[in-house]
């Protein structure tokens, strides 16, 4: 798929290649688009480059060649301020990465206060709304060490939402969780999908992928092999590599 950016899509990636300094070829000519309001789930075996690709979408990883446009910003154009772009792109990590020296509420407030420089009274009200939204209003003054994994990840989602992003990136949000906590986190993500949030999600939860995704991407060894709707991917997998992968995980 090599087409021009249509000026509308949330994500446009064209011929993205990524080499690590050690010579490892992590992404091989990856091209795809994500429309506004779309939920795209990326699946694939470990080391397939799916997390790497996700992280290129807010430049936590730099690419070696190709084009990436996110939310109208050409990521490597001179005029693009990556810090402004990142304010519009929320990211949720596998290991939560909450700031341990701040309470849950402070974690949510820090970006609006210090990045957007908004007044405290305004930010505090919104942060309380967000923490309520992820169902943790009674834990808002707890430090991360006093929260369970599932609770920490919900706070992390609220923190990413605090900047009112146009796009949310989820990097295996449930992989570090105990099984009984996976549901509470997925529920929050599902509710976001219902509200029309544009999301790119890397996950190993196939049931969740089938339920929430508008499109599923299958990656292996740095290549994007399948880009199709979930029905086609899970019910009639055409690609032999995808068949093998699904046979192992389902």
């Amino acid at each position, binding site marked *: 798929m090599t087409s021009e950016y249509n000026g509308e899509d949330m994500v446009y990636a064209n011929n993205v290649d990524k080499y690590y300094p050690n010579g490892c070829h992590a992404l091989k000519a990856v091209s795809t688009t994500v429309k506004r309001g779309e939920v795209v789930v990326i699946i694939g075996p470990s080391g397939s480059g799916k997390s790497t690709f996700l992280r290129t979408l807010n430049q*936590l990883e730099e690419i070696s060649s190709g084009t990436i446009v996110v939310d109208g910003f050409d990521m490597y154009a001179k005029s693009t301020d990556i*810090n402004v772009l*990142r*304010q519009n792109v929320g990211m949720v990590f596998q*290991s939560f990465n909450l*700031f341990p020296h701040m309470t849950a509420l402070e974690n949510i407030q*820090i*970006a609006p206060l210090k990045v957007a420089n908004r007044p405290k009274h305004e930010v505090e009200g919104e942060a309380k709304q967000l923490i309520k939204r992820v169902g943790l209003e009674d834990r808002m003054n707890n430090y991360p060490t006093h929260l369970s994994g599932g609770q920490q990840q919900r706070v992390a989602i609220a923190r990413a939402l605090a*900047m009112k992003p146009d796009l949310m990136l989820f990097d295996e949000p449930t992989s570090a969780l105990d099984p009984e906590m996976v549901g509470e986190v997925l529920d929050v993500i599902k509710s976001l999908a219902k509200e029309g949030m544009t999301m790119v999600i890397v996950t190993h939860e196939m049931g969740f992928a089938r339920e929430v995704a508008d499109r599923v991407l299958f990656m292996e060894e740095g290549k994007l092999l399948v880009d199709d709707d979930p029905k086609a991917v899970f019910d009639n997998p055409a690609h032999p590599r995808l068949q093998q992968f699904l046979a192992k995980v389902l």
Partner: protein
Amino acid sequence: MQSKSSKWIGHGIYVLIMAMLIGAVYFSGKSINYNWHWDRLWPYVVNTEMQQIRANGDGTAVVKAGQLVIEFDDQSQSQVIDTYTTLLVGNGDLIFHGDTVAHLNAWQFGPIAHGLWMTVKISFISLIFAVLLGLIFGLMRVAKNQTARDLSLTYVELIRGTPLLVQIFIVYFFIGTVLDFDRFTAGVVALSVFTGAYVAEIVRAGIQAIPAGQMEAARSLGMTYPKAMRYIVLPQALKRTLPPLAGQFINLIKDSSLVSVISITDLTKAGREVVSGSFAPFEVWFTVAALYLLVTGTLSWAIQRLEKRLSASD
């Protein structure tokens, strides 16, 4: 789990050992026929004796409005004495040079107290500069810029690899001559540059101990690198680096005794001077040691308080 009784037995044995050590010091003092004169030492710390105020020349006393003014015969600038306890002369008395004209009952700090103050002052000022230097060079050490990293590495290796005593001489005699430093400035420069190198290493280690995910999460929220450092990484690093920093600050206070080689009258130099005046070397050096212990102890107590406060998020 330690039982309560064994804990008390442990404390008891400790007290016994300490008593034996103190006894050993006491008896070894006796065995060399040393006469302890703690009373001789006291005036060198705080002088509570009545002071005699003397006339600076020949003249006439004029007492008015609580002031004693001595108008000198040679018309030179009059001597004005306004703090005294008792006057020994009256209005119009003739006064000769060196006469005791008044007594003053006031505490006066002796050389040891002044030395202590100098040690505290030079350590405190050096500490502030050392933290600044350490922060700057520590951040340079983890920066992307290769030149900054090279510079920081050179600074740390150069300073850690040479003795502080030599550095003090170089700063005082070479740099101090070029830039026209006084002794105190030279002492502060040498101490803060020396300690700064160690603080830089502590800061670097502290920053590197923070998981990379913290910086990534901060950057993903749109924070610039300086903001992410300031609000996310450094506050966490501070908490981890407090114990080694406390050790370094205590070293700084102790190392400040070396500035006496460039004739700064700190606690150590004051001690040396008082020994030659009082002929009580044991008392003086024990006192000097106790005063250093007081300063370092206060500092580690303050840092422990800070550690406690920061541990709220644990």
